């Protein structure tokens, strides 16, 4: 199969308008005959469900959490970008587009990114209308802050809880449609398979996490908005439940997985201190507006930070990148922290940390203003570490945060399996090899509010609701049987190792060999090791046997089983991509001053992988990327 990205012709600024006109429509009276399944209720899933329901489609929405309001979009702290140019500082749709393509190190699709920048302003309008309490100036107008990778101030925010407030806005809109009966909400329900018949997505198989019972759901289109796969690394900033299962099982049913090796490492997380730690906690990038990052100049300087005089500190970001300073993009900031620690200048236990210091900001602005801006983040830091950032610099270190890779989609956000659409972090399309801060919220809501309502209609207009499968159809029966067998097998192993121990081992291996820096030798080692670990898992895992009932141990086991297959794909992709770009830093390909060195002649493409069986080499499909509007260049933030 050849990949057709279905990018409309014409100048980039006119593509979306033209495409909206060219797409087919479903007339309002016919929409109620169509049923759409949405899996996931984060920013993308909730906004898509609400918007499709408002148009008149019948929507079934599923989430594994106990309520749609819990999805991990809620944890996004700093803000959401939009090219409103309210600050009169030179922003425009074109500049947001340019910054995002450049920030992604030229591995995203220009047409998608331009559309994202165009829609960014509508998202702010829609969210304000829904009652999102964005920060305001005394005039009553909306306020902005700055974020990494940009020299304009375009980030809208609601204290340090922007994701929460945007999600609660979308959740409120979704709640209204649930009350009206237009959306049927299935909370505590996990998608375990995609049903494909005659090449089209027809529905899903789910497990009710409370009763343990399976059920089949048929629809005219399926939308996955199931988030990212960062938890394959075990420790990440993701929620405990975040997983790759829905995406990966769709992949096993034929959907291509694109650029899985593009995993973002966030520079400002609380360092790992204990081997029992279950996650990494992010400290918002917005802190880099006022905090200054430094390490001691001397190797092995163990003095307390207050005893190290100004002249003996290395504010390495300000030194190396004077134009962007502490606001360099995330990949650049993360690598610089790793380099400082590798040199032996790291601080805190184990030397894996750098200081993020607010002393200057407190001197300049006063403690009150700093508290107003970052109070909740400082409180969170204090409760986790027992130290106060008001009196002692924070210690931070990079951690796995976001997945730029995901299921391959065309311009309509439809995968190569017709009828299967993929939104938000679960798809691959907009962030290339590195996502800029405050752009995930933007993408999730652009996809859900303003893209999928049009593009799903275009698909549905080409199919008839009469062709929707009955759930007794053999395709459903056999998919459910597959799922059930897999679950039974997990319980039947009855070995001696916990699910957690396998998950942790896989995560450490990936972090070590396929984390912030990668090389061919390490990747080959990981590629050999993962199948062994997977084999051991299926021989020696111990899952609590509780029959058909609420069983968190079984939920986790199913997700880890998929991570053990997906991890191999991630490493394979990293090995294939014999260049450095954005977050994908191959030690073999580095500029003389330590920056990522792309190879546009050989790797200016999207790597989309087709599943061929467990342990078998997947087939690579390439989508060549063309840059007609942003000139391919070495990124510079100096």
């Amino acid at each position, binding site marked *: 199969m050849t990949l057709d990205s279905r990018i409309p012709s014409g100048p980039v600024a006119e593509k979306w308008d033209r495409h909206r006109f060219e797409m087919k429509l479903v007339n309002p009276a016919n929409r109620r005959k169509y049923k759409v399944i949405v899996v996931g209720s984060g920013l993308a899933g909730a906004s898509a469900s609400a918007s499709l329901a408002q148009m008149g489609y019948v929507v079934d929405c599923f989430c594994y959490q106990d*309520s749609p309001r819990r999805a991990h979009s*809620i944890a996004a702290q700093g803000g959401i970008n939009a090219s409103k140019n309210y600050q009169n500082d030179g922003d425009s749709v074109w500049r947001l587009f340019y910054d995002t393509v450049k920030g992604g190190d030229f591995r995203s699709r220009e047409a998608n990114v331009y559309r994202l920048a165009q829609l960014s302003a509508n998202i702010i309008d829609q969210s304000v*209308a829904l009652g999102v*309490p964005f920060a305001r*100036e005394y005039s009553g107008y909306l306020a902005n802050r700055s974020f990494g990778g940009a020299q304009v101030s375009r980030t809208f925010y609601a204290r340090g809880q922007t994701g929460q407030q945007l999600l609660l806005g979308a959740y409120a809109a979704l709640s209204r449609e649930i009350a009206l009966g237009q959306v049927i909400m299935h909370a505590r329900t996990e998608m375990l398979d995609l049903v494909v018949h005659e090449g089209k997505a027809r529905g899903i198989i789910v497990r009710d996490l409370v009763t343990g019972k399976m059920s089949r759901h048929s629809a005219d289109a399926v939308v996955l908005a199931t988030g990212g796969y960062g938890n394959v690394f075990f420790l990440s900033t993701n*929620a405990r439940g975040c997983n790759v299962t829905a995406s990966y099982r769709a992949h096993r049913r034929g959907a291509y997985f694109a650029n899985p090796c593009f995993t973002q490492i966030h520079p400002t997380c609380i360092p790992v201190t204990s081997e029992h*730690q279950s996650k990494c906690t992010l400290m918002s990038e917005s802190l880099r507006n006022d905090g200054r990052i430094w390490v001691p100049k001397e190797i092995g300087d163990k003095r307390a930070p207050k005893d190290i005089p100004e002249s003996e500190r290395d504010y390495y970001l300000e030194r190396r990148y004077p134009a962007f300073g502490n606001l360099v993009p995330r990949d650049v900031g993360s690598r610089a922290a790793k380099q400082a620690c590798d040199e032996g200048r790291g601080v805190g236990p184990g030397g894996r940390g750098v200081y993020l210091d607010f002393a200057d900001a407190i001197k300049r602005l006063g403690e009150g203003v700093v508290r107003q801006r970052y109070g909740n983040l400082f409180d969170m830091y204090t409760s986790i570490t027992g130290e106060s950032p008001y009196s002692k610099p924070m210690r931070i270190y990079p951690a796995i945060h976001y997945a730029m890779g995901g299921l391959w989609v065309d311009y309509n956000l439809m995968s190569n399996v017709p009828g299967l659409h993929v939104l938000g972090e679960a798809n691959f399309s907009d962030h290339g090899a590195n996502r800029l801060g405050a752009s995930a919220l933007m993408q999730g809501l652009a996809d859900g509010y303003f893209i999928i309502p049009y593009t799903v209609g275009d698909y549905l207009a080409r199919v008839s609701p009469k062709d929707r499968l009955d759930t007794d159809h053999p395709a459903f029966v056999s998919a459910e049987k597959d799922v059930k067998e897999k679950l039974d097998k997990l319980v039947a192993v009855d070995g001696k190792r916990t699910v957690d121990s396998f998950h942790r081992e896989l995560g450490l291996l990936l972090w070590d060999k396929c984390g912030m820096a990668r090389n061919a030798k390490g990747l080959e080692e990981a590629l050999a090791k993962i199948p062994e670990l997977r084999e051991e898992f299926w021989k020696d895992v111990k899952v609590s046997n509780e029959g058909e009932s609420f069983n968190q141990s079984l939920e986790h086991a199913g997700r880890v089983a998929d991570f053990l297959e997906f991890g191999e794909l991630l490493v394979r992709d990293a090995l294939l991509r014999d260049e450095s770009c954005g977050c994908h830093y191959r030690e073999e390909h580095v500029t003389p001053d330590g920056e990522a060195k792309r190879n546009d002649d050989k790797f200016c493409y999207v790597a989309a992988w087709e599943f061929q069986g467990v342990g078998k080499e997947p087939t690579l499909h390439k989508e060549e990327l063309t840059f007609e509007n942003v000139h391919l260049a070495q990124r510079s933030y100096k």
Partner: protein
Amino acid sequence: MKLTLNIWRQNGPKDEGRLVAYEMKDVEPDMSFLEMLDLLNQRLVLEGERPIAFDSDCREGICGTCGFMIGGVAHGPMKMTTTCQLFMRNFKDGDTIFCEPFRSKAFPIVKDLVVDKSSLDRIVQAGGFISARTGAAPEANSILVSKADADLAMDAAACIGCGACVAACPNASATLFTAAKISHLALLPQGQPEAKQRALRMVARMDEEGFGACSNHGECEAVCPKGISIAFIAKANREYLKAAVTEEPEPLMRV
């Protein structure tokens, strides 16, 4: 640290339930409470026993999934802290700690420490929204909101829906939860057209779900991990009274 945990075990809604004691050795001060339970659960699974069911997701205090009674207090002894953000350095070596689920008629027990809090979702479904159809929104800066109102609305909107307020209330009332949402939207100009019906519908639904009434104990505010003030209950009461003297609750309908 060594600790004794007395944990409520209840294998499903029909089981009677009982406290079971577990001895914990090697608890580290930097561990979170839930990481300690993760450790205990791994031990139980390997011993062939049923692990303790408890809810959590984000583990950074924002999703509102986690929460149970620790030492008789919702989310435990630390102020402004969710269960997942409670660290063991706040306990002493040799402590005995009791863990029980949030108890309320409107929060049926699912298993062990897991309860069903979907009644809170249904209160929001009754009216905790602004009916702004996607695509219909005007330019964002055409709606002015004073900084003071925006800040106050944000204070109310910070609620994470964890249900601790209900668990702490002697009446098992969800008034703080409901009042926070009514106040958040009533403070904004966008929320005005539906303000009266919102207040009437949400309060009616809260009663239907089996939550008790508010009698000003203030326990809700004391345990709220986000510090939501009971001043919002006064605000919501005013909203409710304004609505009740002029309107009847009407069913939600699409235009």
